[in-house]
């Protein structure tokens, strides 16, 4: 376990450094911050002066080092709009995003676990075919469109739910369902294939031979082991889940990090964009790391094999 942990930690550090380089290059390599900040009509001397003030006349690696050493201390510079630190601005918007992500994950589980299990136990039945159809359709669904359709039906026509905003549990229903619908198809497929694989194992036969009831065999013996691939892939998909949360937030005007990021991109407020990108990526990396650890603990084959 210790060697496994060490290897994963090395990889973690490499990925974090990679992400910081990516976030740094978004602003400094692809674009020129001075051109973005100073009006085109300004004289050349003004460009040079600001370049010096921002330290942009120094070699790229010196600039990267400055960026990285500040970022480690949570200093991403001040927002170019409001004169406030970007870090605080992003941190403030983090909780709604996390709540939305968790709610979406919950909805996806509520849909995927029972349907996936039923589909696995009754293969090629109506339920199974229905699940396949739903999964194929779900994967093709642009969720921002799904969100808008939900708003049109439940908020505009039926007037049952608020169209956007944040606060009460009613505000959670449509965004959580939208995000859940994004994640449910792949989860359902994983549960189904995982369970089918496990149900063919010898120990299931042993359990049945011992006279364990079918319900107990499925729920206790099979289900636990079928969960391993589900947890692994869901952990690896966490980045996509956050991506889905970004889409969902913009549709429902959810006051989370994604809405802030999109606003900042429109305003070309780059310190905030950089900070949001780095923090979101760090969360994803942390979740991936935790999932690797949990799976390594549950299943010794993985930590030895990898």
């Amino acid at each position, binding site marked *: 376990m210790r060697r496994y942990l060490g290897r994963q930690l090395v990889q973690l550090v490499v990925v974090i450094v990679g992400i910081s380089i990516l976030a740094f290059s978004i602003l400094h390599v692809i674009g020129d911050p001075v051109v973005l900040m100073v009006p085109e009509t300004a004289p050349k001397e003004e460009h040079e002066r600001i370049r010096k003030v921002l330290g942009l006349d120094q070699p790229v690696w010196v600039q990267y080092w400055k960026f990285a050493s500040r970022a480690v201390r949570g200093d991403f510079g001040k927002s170019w709009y409001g004169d406030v630190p970007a870090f605080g601005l992003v941190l403030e918007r983090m909780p709604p995003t996390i709540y939305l992500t968790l709610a979406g994950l919950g909805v996806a589980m509520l849909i995927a676990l029972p349907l996936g299990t039923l589909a696995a136990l009754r293969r090629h039945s109506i339920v199974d075919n229905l699940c396949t159809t739903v999964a*194929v359709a779900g994967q093709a669904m642009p969720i921002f*469109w799904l969100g808008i359709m939900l708003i049109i039906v439940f908020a505009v026509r039926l007037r049952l739910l608020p169209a956007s905003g944040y606060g009460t549990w009613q505000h959670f229903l449509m965004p959580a369902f939208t995000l859940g619908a994004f994640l449910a198809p792949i989860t359902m497929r994983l549960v189904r294939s995982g369970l089918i694989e496990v149900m063919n194992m010898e120990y299931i036969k042993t359990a049945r031979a011992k006279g364990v009831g079918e319900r107990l065999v499925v729920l206790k013996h099979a289900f636990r082991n079928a969960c391993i691939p589900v947890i692994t892939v869901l952990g690896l998909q966490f980045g996509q889940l956050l991506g889905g949360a970004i889409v969902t937030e913009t549709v429902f005007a959810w006051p989370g990090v994604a809405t802030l990021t999109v606003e900042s991109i429109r305003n070309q407020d*780059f310190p905030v964009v950089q900070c949001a990108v780095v923090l979101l990526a760090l969360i994803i990396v942390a979740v991936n790391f935790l999932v690797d650890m949990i799976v390594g603990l549950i299943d010794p084959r993985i930590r030895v094999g990898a």
Partner: protein
Amino acid sequence: MATTAQGERVRPVAVTSEPDPSQVPLRRLWRVKWGVAAAVILLLIVASAIFAPLVAPADPLAVNIRHRLAPPVWMDGTAAHLLGTDQIGRDLLSRIIWGGRISLLVGVAAVLVSTTIGVLLGLAAGYCGGRTDWTIMTIVNVVLTFPFVLLALSVIAVLGPSLVNMIIVLGVAGWPIYCRVIRAETLAMREREFVVAGRALGMSHARIVFRQIFPNVLSPMVVIATLQVAQVIILESFLSFLGLGVQPPTPAWGNMLGEGRVYMLNSWWIAAFPGAAIFVTTLVINLVGNALRDWLDPHMKL
């Protein structure tokens, strides 16, 4: 005796792990049949996009303020505008037909970019191994950690929204998926007899990679590329929906949906139909991709 005993031992496993053997070809045919049906619909969509000037009933940019927000024909609309009109009276059906051009163009072009990058790097990582492999796979892990959406958003923020930028961003962001699969295939291929024989015969590395290994990774490449077109179309329309992609007045499904959102209180059709177009297109592309996978190699794990 031994064979029957073996047969008996194998049989129960076969029955539980596979469905009734007589059902397998039927089931595969059933799936491919859907794929063929989907392919026909996809061809229709592609054709209507290519021949948009001939197919579209009206000019997608022609403004007609007097007929603004006209409902679809089955809701007391006029036959002149089958799907109704938008906020400045442009014919919705014509705009959807023209919008298909943007989505399909971006989808195919971006996928070509990412396939090229991903396959080349995947072949390099799998064939060279060692430090090359480690470096390429580390980059793959970094890019895969990032949500695709976030990466595309932040690069567009700097480059500025335009059609070409979007193709570049979506193309460059999408390559790791190809790289991972192609690398795994190449690794498996590297030790096969025909590659070893080629090396013994004194073939150059380039020749082994491109003439011997590459043809063998074509099937997974085609399948991923097909499925990826659908993903890119969804992402492109999301960027356009946010106003960070194709700019109005050029009709694109995404920016029509974004404009229609403002009017959803009274005129739901402006947002509903472009979204339905995205959904149908990505659905048939996915069905075609799944059918291709079943047809090329049912055991392919993708």
